[in-house]
């Protein structure tokens, strides 16, 4: 139930619904999609990335002088958690062929494929294996499987969505591996939604020109991650999982090669060393940096640790000036602020409407365009709905879904969404959802090639922590695909590399060099990174903890 002050607007949504439904059922487009010029205008005027203070020049490291997202620049211009002189490099706690940093979908896939290619693997992860954005993705995974579709059309859509900045070799890998990934996942036992002939149920995602969104109800990420985690756990002899132990720096050798990482046991507060012939960074994204103070859909651990590790070791960043805001984050009730409302809701026919019940944008524009038009509606046009806590949003008219797809469609295909709102006594089959853009995805990241190699020997990256495949805007369903495609590729490449590598004497000189760069650039800060975990306690409590000036976890 929505409060009384929203009822007038809700009545207007109900009033315009029959007419909007009619148009939707007629098969014509419910709203005209934007042209290139219109997209450009709404993005530059309303996308948070284009705000004057959204970016600044980074003063140190391989990308020095480049404009990147402010919060990322601050994080990168921070001190290491350790003083290299305090660390005993003669004591190797673990020795392995492949070290995977991160226990999400990309890391799990990498570990499985590295194992298949003969490597002994360690997965080091900050929380539990499977605690990752991978688990939370709802809507789907893209793959061109239908007869009217092709990898080439998928390529076209992905590049257009990314504003033509995507790295071509990475997109080729993404679209060509996609059907293979679906097959691999099905053979591992992932249950995709299917029709009566056994073909996959596919839907249209934002910015896509063909129905190629494969789903597992609205638990797609969970369905995949549960299976990958189960499979990783089936191989304890080859894959060792070290939980609650985030990597806090990479190790290198005298020859400039990466040689493993230093982990931090969150519980005993010890630093431990893993020597590895190949190291894969699969730490995911940065939502918990709360860029521009946005709420986020992201996992608790999404604090960009991998960017810090890679950058200090000398790896390049690509497109770190670009942030994805998902158009539909929850605004009401307050307890679910910023939570993801899957794009599948619009895919199934729900429309974004303003406080007068007017549809104001094509519902399935690429995400940055859709988000920007929501912000325009709520700011310049003043047609948003304002809550009692002063937040603003627009309606996502979910009751249309059952009017289009038949009664029961929401409970059957969107059970997570139904359950989420039902916990707060809102029935989304009968009432719309109040939404506003929410911080969702790191479009850029560590630069890799199509074998997931960074420019530093023995260092690989896969999934959200890497950059290039999505250009400056990712399409729905391409991230689940990304971590599967590149997680697998990284695992294979790292295992093959491990057969050849000879490591030299271990060193942490790169940390000292980075420290020197901070000094030379005259950067004075008490910030320390990686931040590992965000801190959500109150300023009063932090003052009493004597930790008020720290970012994240520091002990």
């Amino acid at each position, binding site marked *: 139930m929505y409060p009384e002050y929203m009822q007038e607007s809700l009545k207007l949504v109900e009033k315009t619904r029959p007419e909007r439904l009619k148009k939707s059922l007629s098969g014509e487009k419910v709203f005209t999609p934007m042209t290139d010029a219109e997209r450009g205008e709404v993005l530059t005027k309303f996308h948070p990335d284009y705000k004057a203070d959204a970016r600044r020049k980074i003063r140190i490291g391989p990308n020095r002088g480049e404009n990147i997202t402010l919060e990322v620049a601050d994080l990168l211009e921070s001190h290491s958690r350790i003083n290299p002189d305090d660390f005993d490099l003669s004591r190797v706690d673990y020795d392995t062929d492949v070290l995977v940093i991160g226990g999400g979908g990309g890391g799990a896939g990498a570990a499985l494929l590295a194992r298949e290619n003969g490597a002994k693997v360690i997965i080091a992860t900050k929380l539990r294996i499977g605690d990752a954005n991978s688990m939370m993705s709802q809507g789907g995974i893209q793959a061109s499987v239908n007869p009217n579709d092709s*990898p080439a059309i998928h*390529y076209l859509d992905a590049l257009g969505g990314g504003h033509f900045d995507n790295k071509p070799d990475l997109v080729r890998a993404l679209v060509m591996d996609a059907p293979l990934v679906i097959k691999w996942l099905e053979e591992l036992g992932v249950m995709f939604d299917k029709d009566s002939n056994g073909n996959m149920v596919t*839907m249209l995602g934002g910015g896509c020109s063909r129905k190629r969104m494969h789903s597992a*109800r609205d638990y797609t990420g969970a369905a995949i991650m549960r*299976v990958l985690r189960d499979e990783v756990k089936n191989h304890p002899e080859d894959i060792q999982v070290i939980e609650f132990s985030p990597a806090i720096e990479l190790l290198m050798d005298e020859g400039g090669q990466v040689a493993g990482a230093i982990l931090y046991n969150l*519980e005993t507060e010890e630093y431990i060393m893993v020597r590895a012939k190949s190291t894969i960074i699969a730490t995911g994204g940065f939502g918990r940096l*709360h860029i521009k103070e946005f709420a986020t859909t992201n996992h608790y651990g999404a604090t960009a640790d991998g960017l810090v590790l890679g950058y200090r070791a000398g790896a390049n960043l690509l497109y770190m000036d670009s942030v994805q805001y998902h158009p539909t984050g929850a605004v009401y009730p307050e*307890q679910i602020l910023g939570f993801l409302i899957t794009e599948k809701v619009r895919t199934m*026919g729900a429309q974004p409407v303003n406080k007068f019940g007017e549809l104001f944008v094509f519902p399935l524009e690429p995400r940055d365009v859709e988000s920007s038009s929501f912000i325009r509606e709520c700011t310049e046009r003043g047609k948003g709905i304002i809550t009692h806590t002063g937040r603003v949003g627009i309606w996502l008219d979910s009751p249309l879904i059952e009017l289009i797809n038949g009664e029961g469609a929401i409970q059957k295909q969107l059970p997570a969404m139904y359950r989420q709102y039902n916990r707060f006594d809102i029935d989304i089959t009968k009432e719309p959802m109040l939404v506003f853009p929410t911080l969702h995805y790191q479009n850029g990241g560590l630069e890799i090639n199509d074998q997931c190699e960074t420019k530093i020997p023995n260092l690989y990256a896969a999934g959200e922590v890497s950059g290039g495949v999505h250009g400056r805007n990712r399409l729905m369903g391409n991230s689940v695909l990304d971590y599967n495609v590149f997680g697998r590729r990284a695992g294979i490449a790292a295992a093959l590399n491990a057969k050849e590598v000879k490591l030299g004497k271990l060193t942490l000189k790169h940390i000292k060099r980075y420290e020197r760069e901070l000094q030379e650039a005259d950067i004075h800060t008490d910030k320390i990174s990686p931040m590992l975990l965000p801190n959500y306690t109150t300023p009063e409590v932090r003052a009493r903890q004597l930790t008020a000036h720290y970012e994240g976890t520091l002990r």
Partner: protein
Amino acid sequence: MEEKTPSPKAKMISLYIMGKKYEVPEGSTIMGALEYAGYQLKRGCGCREGFCGACATVYRTTDDYKIKTGLACQTVVEPNMYLAQIPFFPANKALYDLDELEPSISTFQEIYPELFRCVSCNTCTKACPQDLEVMDYIQALIRGDIAQAADLSFDCIMCGLCAARCPAEIVQYNVAVLARRLYGKYLSKKGEYLESRLKEIKEHKYDKEIEEFMHMDRESFKKKYYARDIEKM
């Protein structure tokens, strides 16, 4: 759109975190209350949106002898709640090679024999924060109905509350993931589209077209993109 701890103006209520009393804002989730009180969560916190099962919590209210269960990120606090999180549960998980298994009751008899000790007490169902019919899927497996078990357990987030409460010491969520994997791999019907696309890719049918796209100048490629036809919803 800042993620804030609840406004200090909110009405405060008392609750007990592992027996210690704290004042927290009314309307907070249990997770919000823990953080408001000053906890930096390590275990017991994951996706914060009800998908990962990290924040399984047991609690009791003063007027009731019953132990209740919920996800800390999804459960709103009540006055005088006594709560504790379950940081880890040493649950049994069988190791298996899915390729070697048969999608039949005998597989479960062999690798999860405790499944058949179910006494139909329904405690698992009552404990489930997803409101799944946990006992029903366990009973379905005992009858050998893997398809039904897979369907009923589909929305499981593997938080472990069912197993923590089960008197027969069944690990329902690990049994269920096996049921779903067997269904997905062996029992679900396979369509033709995927196989034929894989064959085309293997025969390099799309290599040339994508190669051309990769080398096209930006303006021509843009034209091609905006001229593409969009399939109807």
